[in-house]
């Protein structure tokens, strides 16, 4: 027994060491981002290029997902509301659910999968093929060019994508409501805007900024610190998605508590 515990102790302590070293590394990475983001030279061109890649290239997937979420959620909610004869509340219910939670969450999770993994894999492969070193020896700051530009792009683009997802989901919901309850477009959107408040939209946008920052910084951190060749690149892409998704749910929970506190205040 004593032998067993001796054997296990170093492994456990190594894992604890690794966890805390990883946390410290990640913290330093975030600190470096905030330091570099305000220092010249500014990579405007690269930020715009990344915004285009992240925003425009995600549109087809986001559009399809948002539209389907709107239709499915409306369809699934109808039976419960019709039990109370309250199907006329569908637009209100859907708008609150989409704007407050589903729009930001669905967009962020899709972006974590699509954008986060691509950032992790791209920077990871640049790292293992010495492209980052090549950038550094040509007197370019690779952190600024690769990391700052991508994190800014995800931070700016995710809120825009969230607003777009909200809109597409509401259109999907409208088509469903229209075909079943014969509600007109103006009535539907009147009810939608009646139900959501300014705080709902602002909290959704602020939450999306946080999600965007998380997706960008986690993808970049994982890629920038990848090693062990192609295996490391795959691992970087995978863990970028898993950690981003995990953090997005935690952030959602925290923001929800804060917004609820503001609402009651």
């Amino acid at each position, binding site marked *: 027994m004593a032998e067993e515990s001796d054997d296990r102790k170093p492994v456990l302590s190594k894992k604890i060491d690794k966890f805390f070293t990883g946390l410290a590394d990640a913290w330093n990475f975030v600190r470096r981002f905030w330091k570099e983001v305000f220092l010249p030279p500014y990579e405007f061109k690269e930020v715009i290029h990344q915004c285009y890649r992240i925003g425009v290239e995600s549109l087809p997937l986001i559009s399809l997902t948002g539209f389907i979420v709107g239709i499915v959620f409306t369809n699934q909610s109808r039976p419960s509301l019709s039990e109370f004869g309250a199907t006329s509340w569908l637009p209100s219910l859907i708008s609150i659910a989409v704007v407050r939670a589903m729009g930001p969450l669905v967009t962020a999770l899709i972006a974590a999968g699509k954008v986060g993994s691509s950032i992790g894999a*791209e920077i990871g*492969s*640049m790292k293992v*093929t*010495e*492209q980052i*070193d*090549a*950038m*550094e*020896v*040509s*007197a*370019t700051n690779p952190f600024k060019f690769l990391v700052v530009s991508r994190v800014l792009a995800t931070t700016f683009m995710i809120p825009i994508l969230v607003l777009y997802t909200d809109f597409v989901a509401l259109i999907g919901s409208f088509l469903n409501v229209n075909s079943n309850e014969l509600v007109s477009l103006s009535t539907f959107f009147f009810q939608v805007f009646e139900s959501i408040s300014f705080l709902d939209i602002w909290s959704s946008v602020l939450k999306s900024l946080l999600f965007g920052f998380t997706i960008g910084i986690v993808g970049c951190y994982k890629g920038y610190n990848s090693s062990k060749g192609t295996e490391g690149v795959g691992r970087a892409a995978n863990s970028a998605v898993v950690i981003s998704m995990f953090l997005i749910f935690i952030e959602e929970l925290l923001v929800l508590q804060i917004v609820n506190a503001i609402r009651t205040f």
Partner: protein
Amino acid sequence: MAEKVVEIKNLYKSFGDLHVLKGVDLDLFREENLVILGRSGTGKSVLIKIMVGLLKQDRGQMQVLGKEVSKLPTRELNELRLKIGFSFQNSALYDSMTVRENMEFPLVRNIKNLTRKEINHRIEDLLDAVGLPQTINQMPSELSGGQKKRIGVARTLVLNPEIMLYDEPTAGLDPITCVDINNLINEVRERYKTTSIVITHDLTCAKMTGDRMAVLLDGQFSSIGTFEEVFPHAEDQRVKSFYDYNFIES
């Protein structure tokens, strides 16, 4: 006596318990081609990475163009880096950029006020020099290993460096392409008057490109001299075996 371009004194570098460089001393003179030979993992690449500030030594001196690299602030280090061209083992071309964009990247970031015409002229001139003008709009994934190496060299030459560092320039290439790359290294020296360090374990490459050889064994240079001085009659068994493996017929 020729001017010293690089001066290394008593340089040490370890990675954890692995002691890679153990008191390395070396001088590099202007316009010479120095070849550093050694088995894999002996610290050859580490040495040139310290030279450009990608790694830091644990102790000792690394003076490049009269400046101690480890003590330079970022701005001065970047100024020094512009005078050093680093050709990476895997070429390290930016995957997402065309050959033209790869070559423009260091140019437009470091030399301001260049017109489009000047940029194009410079890029086309260098692609001509490495014999690959037709690849200008190709992506790195469309190039062969030898072409990538040549473009990598052209990209480092775009800033007119004084020193060229070649990390395993012939690794993974067929013998004919190896000879082409060796000739290119010599042409670069003649045409652009560069001082070069070539890291390799390919003795044919060493013989073709080097004025002097330095053999790195157990963290130190065991022999430094011309090819004839170092190899055919080496007394050190480790150097001799290195030679025998490369030229079995001798």
